[in-house]
């Protein structure tokens, strides 16, 4: 078995924390795990990609071209940057809420709509599901829970596909282990909201 997850995000959205949660949950279940991160610099606002690789002959930190199974995009346009890793057997889970850079806000550069992103990914052949994770995160208590909303959505996807990569119990344990205690309640709500939101659409 080889299962490759790519998390695409904008610095400050919690993509790296999400990769840590998933890796811890997978390790808890006895899987072999390797995580590769393009951390770059400490600022907020740049593109960040985390590669989580689970399974037998996984040694390197990078997903080989076209071998990503699940793309979790915390920002819709960031999903496009992962195109090289995607193929007809990939599935993309997108947060709908966009974070356009300043040049796009001022109308100086184009910024793709959600429909354009979905269409571009579909053309590669991958399945696409999307949800308004930002709204759900705010509902859970803080926008900082956005990453865990997407984890909940990922669990719903795994359940629907009958993939035993993670269990809800292991994921919840890993959330408890990783997030600061003052945000724990909000994050557990976020996990549930993300799960329910995606399950409702599958």
């Amino acid at each position, binding site marked *: 078995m080889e299962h490759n997850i790519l998390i695409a995000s*904008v610095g400050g959205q919690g993509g790296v924390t999400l990769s840590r949660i998933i*890796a811890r949950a997978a*390790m808890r279940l006895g899987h*072999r*795990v*390797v*995580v*590769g*991160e*393009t*951390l*770059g*610099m*400490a*600022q*907020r*606002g*740049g*593109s960040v990609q985390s590669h989580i690789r689970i399974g*037998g*002959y*996984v*040694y*390197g*930190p*990078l*997903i*080989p*071209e*076209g071998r990503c199974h699940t793309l979790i995009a915390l920002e819709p*346009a*960031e999903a*496009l*940057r992962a*195109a*090289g890793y*995607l*193929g*007809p057997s990939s599935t993309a889970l997108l947060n709908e809420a966009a974070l*356009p*850079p*300043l*040049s*796009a*806000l*001022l109308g100086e*550069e*184009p*910024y*793709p709509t959600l429909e*354009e*992103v979905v269409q*571009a*990914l579909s*053309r*590669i*052949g991958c399945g696409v599901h999307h949800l308004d994770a930002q709204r759900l995160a705010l509902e859970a208590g*803080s*926008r*900082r829970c956005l990453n865990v909303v997407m984890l909940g959505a990922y669990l719903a996807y795994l359940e629907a596909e009958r993939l035993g990569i993670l269990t809800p119990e292991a994921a919840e344990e890993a959330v408890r282990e990783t997030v600061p205690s003052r945000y724990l309640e909000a994050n557990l709500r976020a996990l549930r909201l993300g799960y329910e939101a995606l399950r409702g659409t599958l």
Partner: protein
Amino acid sequence: MSEILGEEGEHRLLMGNEAIARGALEADVGLAVGYPGTPSSEVIQTLARVADQIAVRAEWAVNEKVAVDIATGYSYAGFRALATMKNAGLNVASDTLISVAYSDVRGGLVVYVADDPGAHAGMEEQDNRWFTRLSLLPMIDVSDPQEAKDAVVLAFDLSEEHGVPLLVRSTTRVAHMTGVVELGAIKKVGRKPDFKRDVRRYTRASPMWCREQHRRLNEKLEALSHRVDELEVNRLHIPDGGAERGVVASGISWSYLRETLDRYGLWSEIATLKVGTINPLPRVLIERLMEEVEELLVLEELEPYLELHLKALASEIEVRPEIHGKMDGWLPRVGEYTPEGVEEAVGRLLGYRLREEREGHLEEARRRALKLAPRRPLPLCPGCPHRGTYTAMRMALRELSYGDGDFIVTGDIGCTILGMHPPFNLCWTEVSMGASIGLGIGLRYAGVDKPIIAAIGDSTLFHAGLPPALNAAWYGSRVVIAVLDNRVTAMTGHQPSPTSGYTATGGEARPIEADGVLRALGIEHIWVADPYNLEEAKEAFKEALGCGEPSAVVLKRVCALVARRLGLPPQPHRVDGERCTGCLLCLRTLACPALSLSPEGKAEIDVETCTGCGLCAQICPTGAIEGGEP
């Protein structure tokens, strides 16, 4: 409990740099000292977090050379010391390191250097394996977190047994990769400080002594070269039935190769040699492989270091294999390797495709998706004090009637360089730590008669900016040194700098003020301003630009991310929709990530992102933005 403090035999999920830190503990390191630099910084950070639970001193030095100086003194006294740095950091440390190679180290001395193929951190793709040729020092190159940990333990043993400093090298992909590591035992040997005067070993005062030391260093390497073939970091695998083709790999390329051979079941077809010791090379294993195969592929990122050495060794044996790598164009010398690139090269060696040909329409769909992805230049963080500095600098230049191109801003290393991006468009150059000031002096000597501002951060100033500042004072060079003093080494992850007032382990330290130091160096005209106060900062720049002598403007305000971490409560500002005319001057001038556009076309502030720096309130022409004092 920290992940790295597990018991012997436990399995932990560790990042490459955390594994290096764990290795240091298992090797009885008493001191870890370095200068922050991506991708090496997490080693000291990790050790600093456990320093109060285990007897290890972890700290940041002013620069890499000072770090190696300190580590050397510690080693001379009989203790084990680790020094850490990024690729270019080794250039700074090399003066000491090349000299120390001639002396016998006593306690083990290991230098960890993290290179950056792919230039993820935005500097040169310097291949430090070549430093072994310059310094003669031994080096181990690692390919995953487990090996990184084990290599540190091995390096300390070898360093102490042979009396020579060792280098452990990784790259970004290894340093920042997380994998499962089986922990070894944490050793603690009782040591007592003991250093005896022996000038024939510890000084270079006589040419005869130097030559003798040089001879001894060569002898140490010769002795080491007889051991490396037996070390586990070097592994030769020849399939039972023999093989016509072989692959030599080191570093992360080894991980990509293993994956390829596993995936396609090729271990029985290809002989492999994993090279872990870059110097000395495992000569016996290399020769055995070259005698076995007819064709050989070399997998190594950046320069053809192994390839050249293999070709040199091949010239000494009778039946030479054909060697493929970078020199015949099979693989690139620029950028990092990828798993699919390695797959392709292995396929080429075998003479057939390992994976089906890429379908044209799939390629095209990927290209179109990538083209649709918007550019996302790194912005300054919300509340970044540099935003105030660069805005005030622009305002001052405009009020003095200097248009774009009428002035020069030399930039430096760190977050301060982000002033080069729109809307500031300020830094013109980025060379090396502290270079902004010397470049300014040189431009002035060349007859450039525009205002010249050297923009440098506090940590960078103390690292290598003080000597050029002294030079400017000495010769009266008309350069304005803008010290963007955010009280921390920010870009690498907020490690303390001499201005911070605390140490790596959170202990108290005396904050050193840049203005005081610059004054002592002979810069007589110095202004101190708060970059959150645009008027004050602008006036300071105007006066400095007009003073006609070497001058400095020190802009003091703690990094906004550090302020948040210190628990200083943010005071978000808000936009009064009635008064906002939608001119968007705030967005255009400041490019703050907390600012965006409301559906009605007016400015909007995100309360979770806004730190309350107040710059937008000072910019707004209609007074539509309100909030408390920052």
